[in-house]
């Protein structure tokens, strides 16, 4: 069984290699190869899962060291894998949702001439993500961590002939790199503290290190998580990342990669549990982001960007839960899994809508689509109900638990966190209803798109440029994944909660304790229901009852700020871009003027001096003779004088 773990990473990696280096002769079958590879890794994942299920609850950890990767002095990094309940949960999510999205992409990317490469990148992503969750040490995790960043870079910029896509890809990579600095410093700190960075020894001995050291490690891990999971203050890339093809947004920027931060925090539970300050920072980041993302999600008219805001916010919930310590780890992962189902479903639904609407993304230009796309409507609707926490659907179970856990934190902190989480739930209900209503209900506000100044994303769309869209249901190869994901978003939460199955499954790894909420569980659930209904009702009154203007109204100050992602890019621009620009230009001048200037100046000084000295060389033999005689005379005089003294 151990051998299968390595195979799990190797299979998609080989798939990526074959697809990317295979050349044009694979163009016709490339997409099926890619999908097959994803399905195969899902099968391996399922076999491993079954294997773990068959073992005793406290013996569900498999370690396998494949080879010694970097052995230098006291520094030992192994290429080793660790499979336990936490990582196998991720494996199933990644390969399961990944396979569905591969399948969906077969239809979605049907008309793209570079489809083979797209599947190659998707396989590369799978390999890197699996490496991330299966690694048994932080350095190998780091490889996967940057590997998914690379895949994300390549996929966001997949339509790189669009400057906006290329810029978005670069931005995503750069912001992530800032987070990566955090991760690498964390690994270095671990090495200097423990002399190793393998999960086992570090986490087992975390309590023996000083609290200050652990706090530093924790904060650095948090920085890394912020970058990868688009948490404040490194959240700015996620909205732009929607430039990528929609399946990418669904897989990478909703279901899996962006949740890697939550995995990192949960995996490092022992460190955070021993460093309350770092833990408080995690909670703060989560709470701020869940509100931040929700507010941004309310203002966006671009369906994918609205969903991206929502993703940010939902991950905020997970980070918040992970920051609560053993109270919340399990629920963070549980929400992560359910979110993987419903958010992937929502994105695929959005992709299906765009597919039928000539790649229109402006929700103000949708409307009344439920008649034309019944399957998309139903699956999107189920995802919608799941995310707002409609009773019985998966989002209800997972989110409700997080809100309970937040209150259970106790004290003023508990009230603030619980309040924030509740407020977030209300806003979630509001913006998701807005998305739902704008897209599927109301009158038809379509327009002949896309406009000429925005070059069409796909070559196929260019064919019917200028024509009115003819919304139609997507082909089966796209709807089937949507149906499966919708089923997941309906059932997952319920299944996990039967007999606390998920809690029992994960708690041996993460630890778990039931909190004592100052308000009862039922009260919390009721409050959640109330705020959800309020949010839905408000959105319905605003968008369902009244006609929707196709050009957005000016809106309040907050709306305008939210449309600009709460000024995140403006702040970054002023502080980093402009400041950096000045710094770089200044340095270039310094290099040319001062450093090189000193060198050239020396050269010029020597040259000038020699030009002057050259005048002594007048070419008159007799003047040379004079200097010779003079010199000799001086030498003789000096010698004699020295003798005399």
């Amino acid at each position, binding site marked *: 069984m151990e051998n299968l773990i390595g195979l799990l990473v190797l299979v998609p990696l080989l798939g990526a290699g074959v697809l990317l280096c295979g050349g044009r002769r694979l163009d016709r079958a490339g997409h099926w190869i890619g999908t097959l590879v994803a399905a195969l890794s899902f099968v391996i994942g399922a076999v491993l899962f079954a294997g773990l299920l068959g073992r005793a609850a406290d013996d569900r950890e498999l370690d396998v060291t494949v080879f010694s990767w970097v052995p230098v002095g006291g520094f030992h990094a192994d290429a080793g894998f660790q499979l336990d309940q936490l990582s196998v949960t991720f494996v199933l999510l990644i390969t399961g949702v990944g396979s569905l999205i591969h399948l969906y992409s077969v239809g979605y990317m049907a008309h793209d001439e570079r489809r083979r490469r797209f599947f190659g990148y998707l396989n590369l992503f799978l390999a890197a993500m699996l490496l991330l969750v299966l690694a048994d040490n932080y350095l190998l995790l780091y490889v996967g961590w940057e590997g998914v960043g690379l895949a994300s870079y390549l996929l966001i910029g997949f339509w790189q002939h669009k400057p906006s896509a290329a810029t978005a890809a670069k931005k995503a990579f750069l912001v992530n790199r800032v987070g990566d600095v955090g991760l690498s410093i964390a690994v270095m700190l671990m090495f200097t503290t423990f002399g190793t960075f393998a999960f086992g020894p570090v986490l087992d001995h975390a309590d023996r290190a000083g609290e200050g050291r652990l706090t530093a490690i924790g904060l650095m891990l948090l920085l890394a998580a912020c970058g990868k999971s688009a948490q404040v203050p490194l959240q700015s890339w996620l909205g732009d990342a929607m430039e990528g093809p929609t399946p990418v947004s669904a897989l990478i920027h909703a279901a899996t990669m962006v949740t890697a931060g939550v995995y990192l925090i949960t995996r490092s539970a022992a460190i955070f549990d021993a460093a309350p300050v770092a833990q408080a920072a995690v909670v703060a980041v989560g709470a701020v982001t869940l509100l931040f993302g929700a507010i941004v999600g309310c203002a966006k008219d671009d369906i994918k960007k609205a969903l991206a805001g929502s993703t940010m916010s939902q991950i905020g919930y997970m980070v918040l839960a992970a920051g609560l310590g053993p109270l919340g780890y399990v629920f963070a992962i549980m929400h992560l899994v359910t979110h993987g189902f419903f958010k992937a479903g929502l994105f695929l639904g959005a992709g299906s809508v765009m597919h039928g609407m000539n790649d229109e993304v402006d929700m103000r230009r949708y409307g009344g689509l439920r008649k034309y796309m019944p399957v998309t409507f139903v699956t999107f609707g189920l995802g919608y109900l799941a995310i707002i926490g409609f009773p019985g659907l998966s989002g209800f179970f997972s989110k409700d638990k997080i809100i309970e856990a937040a209150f259970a934190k106790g004290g003023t902190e508990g009230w603030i966190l619980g309040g924030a989480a509740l407020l977030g739930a209300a806003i979630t209900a509001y913006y998701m209803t807005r998305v739902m209503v704008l897209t599927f209900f109301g009158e038809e506000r379509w327009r002949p798109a896309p406009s000429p100044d925005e070059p069409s994303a796909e070559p196929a769309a260019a064919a019917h440029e200028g024509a009115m869209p003819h919304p139609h249901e997507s082909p089966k190869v796209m709807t089937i994944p949507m149906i499966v994901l919708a089923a997941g978003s309906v059932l997952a939460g319920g299944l996990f909660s039967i007999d606390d199955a998920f809690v029992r499954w994960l708690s041996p790894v993460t630890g778990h304790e039931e909190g004592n909420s100052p308000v009862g569980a039922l009260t919390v659930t009721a409050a959640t229901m109330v705020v959800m209904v309020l949010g839905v009702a408000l959105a319905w009154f605003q968008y369902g009852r009244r006609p929707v203007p196709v050009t957005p109204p000016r809106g309040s100050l907050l709306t305008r700020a939210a449309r600009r992602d709460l000024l995140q890019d403006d702040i970054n621009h002023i502080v980093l871009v402009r400041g950096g620009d000045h710094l770089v230009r200044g340095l270039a001048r310094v290099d040319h003027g001062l450093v090189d200037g000193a060198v050239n100046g020396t050269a010029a000084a020597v040259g000038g001096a020699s030009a002057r000295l*050259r005048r002594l*060389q*007048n*070419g008159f*033999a007799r003047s040379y*003779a004079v200097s010779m005689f003079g010199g000799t005379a001086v030498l003789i005089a000096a010698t004699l004088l020295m003798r005399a003294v």
Partner: protein
Amino acid sequence: MNPVNYLYLAALLFTIGAAGVLIRRNAIVVFMCVELMLNACNLAFVTFARMHGNLDGQIIAFFTMVVAAAEVVIGLAIILTIFRSRHSASVDDASLLKL
């Protein structure tokens, strides 16, 4: 006779030669003055050989004569070439040594 007197003579000859090199413009004369200086040295060497009672000075004097002969050959050749191309034997006219 006191050999020191020969040294005085050598010094005198050398000074005359040096002054000639510095003052005269005609290359031939300058050249002759150089020869004068060399011979002044020879005289001094021979005198020292006499004074110290060994042959070292005389041997060096022979070397000097060889060098002087070589110098005469090359020097006269140069002067002749310059005279041919410039129609002048003035050393100041041949100020081509500078860059």
